């Protein structure tokens, strides 16, 4: 974990800005453990980061690859204007949701965003309504394009709307995922509404999307 006071002293002694101090330490020792809670398996982590960046570059996502590679490598230092002159050290994160360092922060943001909605729904629950977890899966065809993902999301929307065509007060949010090492596109849905049978939902899903797998 970085001791900012010592780092500043050493940087001043060497006549370099703190940013260069950090760059030098990164180059010599590997990535700094800024908050002391980072798994220091540097080589494996950096290798994996490089592999992900290569895939991003191959898919013409160069700025994103850049951000991902440089996550936490640089930082801003801030100083309060008040009498106590507090010093704050703020690493520059990539904020990409697949970054192991940034994903937990993104998760916390999502919880903060949706928690009030979920609490509000729970506090005025309709009879027979409850939260249900649904997974809708598409057939794995070995490739995946933005068009396929858009169509998949549209089919989910249609399926839920069709299933709830005479119901009011229902709602759903979902997140698309692919398999760990494949292109198996599926969606995890938090659904609020009445009971739907798996059989009925699977029939609707197949009719609308042509896919078969439904889990409730």
């Amino acid at each position, binding site marked *: 974990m970085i001791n900012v006071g010592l780092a500043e002293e050493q940087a001043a002694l060497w*006549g*370099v800005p703190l940013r260069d101090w950090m760059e*030098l330490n990164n180059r010599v020792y590997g990535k700094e453990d800024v908050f002391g809670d980072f798994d220091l398996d540097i080589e494996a982590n950096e290798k994996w980061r490089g592999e992900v960046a290569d895939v991003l570059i191959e898919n013409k996502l160069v700025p994103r*690859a*850049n951000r991902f590679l440089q996550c936490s490598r640089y930082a801003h230092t801030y100083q309060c204007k008040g009498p106590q002159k507090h010093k704050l050290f703020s690493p520059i994160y990539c904020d990409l949701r697949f970054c192991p360092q940034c994903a937990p922060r993104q998760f916390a943001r999502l919880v903060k965003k949706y928690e009030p909605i979920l609490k509000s729904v729970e506090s005025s629950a309709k009879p027979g309504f409850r939260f249900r977890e649904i997974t809708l899966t598409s057939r794995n065809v070995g490739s995946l394009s933005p068009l396929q993902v858009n169509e998949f999301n549209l089919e989910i929307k249609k399926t839920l709307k069709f299933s709830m065509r005479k119901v009011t007060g229902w709602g759903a949010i979902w997140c698309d995922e692919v398999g760990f090492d494949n292109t198996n596109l599926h969606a995890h849905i938090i659904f609020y509404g009445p009971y739907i049978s798996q059989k009925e939902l699977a029939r609707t899903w197949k009719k609308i999307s042509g896919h078969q797998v439904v889990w409730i």
Partner: protein
Amino acid sequence: MTEDSQRGREGYKIWRNPSTRTEPIVYMGEFYPPSPELFFVAAELVALGFGPGVYTVRAPGPEPRPEPRPEPGPNRLISQAPKWHTVQVFK
């Protein structure tokens, strides 16, 4: 290099890399290459009296990344930028 020719120029800063993570980085000082366009190479470090080891050299110049999220520029260019380089001196 004369003092006149060095005036107004920032030098190359050189650190000796430790062989293990527990050892400190040692600052060797600021040095000036024979020409502003040249980078330090191992032979020049030997000429300056540097012994065997691995050194990290920081070239003078602007900061590589003033913005938190710069636009494109392949990331490889950043890691290969001449601002920093590693020089190994053998016996």
